[in-house]
C-alpha cells in the first residue's frame, strides 16, 4: 500500500470482468483463517481438569471478560449477545493488532469492511428487538414519545450506522496514513512510536465498536424489562393492599 492509496481496496492483485481480488479480501481471509484455525486448535483438546493448557486459559479469559463486559453494559444475561458482539470485537481486534506485521494492511482501513460490519449491527438490532419484544413492541418504540418523533427515530437509526462505519474506518485509516507519512519524513524511530499508538487506538476502537453495538441492541431489547418491572411493582402494591 502506497501513500496515495486511501483504502486497501485500491490494491488489486487479480482482476477479471466485474470480479476483482484486492488486498481487503486477501487480508480478511487471512484473519478468518487465523481465527478459525486458532479456535479449532485450542478447543480441540479442552479439559475441565485443574491442569489447563495455556491456550485454553487465554480463551477462557477472553470469553469470561467478554461475558462480564456485556453483562455490565446491557444489564441482561450475556448468553445470546455473546456470539454476535464477541465476534465483532475479536475480528476488529485481530485485524487492528496484526498491523504490526510488516506488509499487512488492516482490512478495517477499508470503508467496505467497516460498512459491512455496521450493516450487520443495523440488521441485528431489529432482530434482537423483535426476538425480545415481538414485532408490535419493537415497532412501537419508533413512535415513542409521540408519533412526531418517527422521522427522527428513523434518521437516528441510519445516521448512527453511518457513524459506526466511518468512525472505525477513519481511525484505522488515519493511523496507517500517519505511519506512512512519518515513514517518508522521519524514517528511523518515530514511526515505531506512532505504530505503538496505533495499537492502542485499534484496541480502543474495537472495544468501542463492540460496546456501541451492544448499547444499540440492548436499547432495542430493553424497554420490555421496564414494563415488566412496572407490572411487578403494581402487583406488589396490590398484594400489599390485600
Amino acid at each position, binding site marked *: 500500500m502506497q*501513500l*496515495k*492509496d*486511501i483504502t486497501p481496496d485500491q490494491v488489486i492483485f487479480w482482476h477479471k470482468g466485474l470480479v476483482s481480488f484486492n488486498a481487503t479480501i486477501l487480508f480478511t481471509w487471512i484473519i478468518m483463517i487465523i481465527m478459525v484455525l486458532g479456535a479449532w486448535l485450542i478447543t480441540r483438546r479442552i479439559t475441565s481438569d485443574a491442569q489447563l493448557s495455556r491456550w485454553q486459559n487465554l480463551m477462557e479469559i477472553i470469553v469470561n471478560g467478554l461475558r462480564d463486559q456485556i453483562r*455490565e*453494559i446491557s444489564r441482561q444475561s450475556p448468553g445470546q449477545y455473546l456470539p454476535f458482539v464477541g465476534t465483532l470485537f475479536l475480528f476488529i481486534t485481530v485485524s487492528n493488532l496484526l498491523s504490526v506485521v510488516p506488509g499487512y494492511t488492516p482490512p478495517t482501513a477499508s470503508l467496505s469492511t467497516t460498512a459491512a460490519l455496521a450493516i450487520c449491527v443495523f440488521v441485528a438490532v431489529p432482530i434482537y428487538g423483535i426476538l425480545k419484544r415481538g414485532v408490535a413492541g419493537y415497532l412501537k418504540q419508533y413512535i415513542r414519545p409521540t408519533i412526531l418523533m418517527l422521522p427522527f427515530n428513523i434518521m437516528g437509526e441510519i445516521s448512527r450506522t453511518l*457513524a459506526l462505519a*466511518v*468512525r472505525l*474506518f*477513519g*481511525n484505522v*485509516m*488515519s493511523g496507517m*496514513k500517519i505511519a506512512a507519512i512519518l515513514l517518508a519524513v522521519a524514517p528511523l524511530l518515530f514511526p515505531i512510536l506512532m505504530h505503538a499508538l496505533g495499537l492502542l487506538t485499534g484496541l*480502543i*476502537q474495537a*472495544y*468501542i465498536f463492540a*460496546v*456501541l453495538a451492544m*448499547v444499540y441492541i440492548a436499547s432495542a431489547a430493553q424497554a420490555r424489562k421496564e414494563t415488566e418491572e412496572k407490572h411487578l411493582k403494581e402487583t406488589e402494591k396490590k398484594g400489599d393492599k390485600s
Partner: protein
Amino acid sequence: MDSISMIGLGSIITAGLTIGIGAIGPALGEGRAVAQALSSLAQQPDESNTITRTLFVGLAMIESTAIYCFVVSMILIFANPFWDYIISKAGG
C-alpha cells in the same frame, strides 16, 4: 488560472481548513469531558470502572466528528474525484 490549478488550489486549501477548524470543537469537547471525568474519579474512586468505560465511549463519540473532518480532508487530498476527472480529461 486554468482549471487544473484552480481545482488543486481549492482542494488543498479546503483540506487544510477542514481539518484545522474541525479539530477545534472536538478538542474543546474532549478537554471538558476528561476534566469532568477526572474530578468525578477523584470524588468517587470506587466507581472508576464505570467512569473510565463511559469516558472512553464518550471520547470516541466526540472524536468521531474530528475523524469525519479528517476523512473529508484525506479524500480531498488523495482521492479527489474532481481532480481525477480533470486529469483524465487533460490526459486523454
